[in-house]
């Protein structure tokens, strides 16, 4: 019965449009950090990711970025790149590495979405944009989120030079908490408002 159940389970995963690709490495870090960062919060009021807002990067994330020789950007650097005139010419590009639902709830205005877990839809567009860009800022939620790193590594893996990338470790939580502009809905929707990251 366990064998039948397992066979059905793998078959269901194979036919599911949201199924996982078994052979793919979804966490392509070169180094294995000493256990993932705690994704937990003590029982206290406030949002689940409170510790991510405005906090220094969690040690495993910083350690992993350093090991990958990926450059980090803090809030000031990210904001400066956002205001850089080259941003309008897409010579500076922001990449949002979160999933579509999170992206639509609020992203850095003009940022491209690239969910590296499901790259099929966005890869061609993002790849083209990154090939033309001089500097690429990648972010996810912030705190112990590693998706920005994985997204950058995926793009490096398809030929974008590593030195163009900056990982904005504070992520969308910090960006929104600092009162920087947030675009809701699709890219260039023009709907600028407050997000709930």
């Amino acid at each position: 019965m366990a064998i039948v159940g397992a066979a059905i389970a793998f078959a269901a995963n194979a036919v599911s449009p949201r199924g996982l690709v078994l052979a793919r490495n979804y966490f392509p870090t070169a180094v294995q950090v000493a256990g993932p960062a705690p994704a937990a919060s003590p029982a206290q009021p406030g949002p689940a990711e409170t510790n991510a807002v405005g906090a220094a990067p969690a040690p495993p994330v910083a350690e992993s970025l350093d090991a990958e020789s990926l450059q980090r950007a803090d809030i000031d650097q990210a904001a400066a790149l956002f205001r850089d005139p080259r941003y309008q010419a897409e010579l500076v590009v922001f990449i949002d590495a979160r999933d579509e639902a999170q992206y639509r709830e609020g992203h850095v205005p003009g940022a491209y979405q690239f969910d590296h877990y499901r790259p099929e839809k966005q890869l061609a567009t993002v790849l083209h944009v990154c090939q033309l860009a001089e500097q690429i800022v990648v972010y996810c939620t912030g705190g112990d989120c590693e998706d920005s790193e994985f997204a950058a590594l995926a793009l490096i893996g398809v030929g974008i030079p590593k030195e163009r990338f900056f990982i904005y470790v504070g992520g969308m939580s910090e960006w929104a908490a600092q009162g920087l502009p947030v675009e809701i809905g699709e890219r260039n929707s023009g709907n600028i408002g407050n997000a709930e990251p």
Partner: protein
Amino acid sequence: MSAMPLTGRHRRWDIAAVLARWLLGGLFLQMGLSKALDPVDFLKLVREYDLTQHPLLLNGIAAALPWFEVFCGVLLLAGVAVRGSALMLVAMLVPFTWVVFQRALALQADLGIPFCEVKFDCGCGAGEVYICRKLVENGLLILFSAWLLMGWGRRLCARYALMKSGPEN
């Protein structure tokens, strides 16, 4: 239990066991579907347990476990191969509860808070939960599964045992 005629008291217990079977089936169906429909989130949670770093094993667990739960849930709801399904649940719940407990201990040590105030998304399909509540819930689910494993809850079954034929099936 299967061979003996049910007395009034036994009948009431068996009806309660049927309700437990439906509860288990419904819960596993719901929890399995919530994970199966968003396997990437579940994959990230499985990785946090640090059971393995091998992509194939990690992906295999995250890909198959939710659908396996759905499979067991449907069988329990329909009343097909009930004892086998209950055995599968025990086989999943006991080690899972153990790793959740271990992770909670590690988080307690990291965060320096009382054990019952540890709250995290254990990958159960219900978001962040307090660990003590989760352990009690899992304990009850294991008890219910063991109850079905002992042969109770055979009313309103489409086919209680797959391998046997006869009036009880």
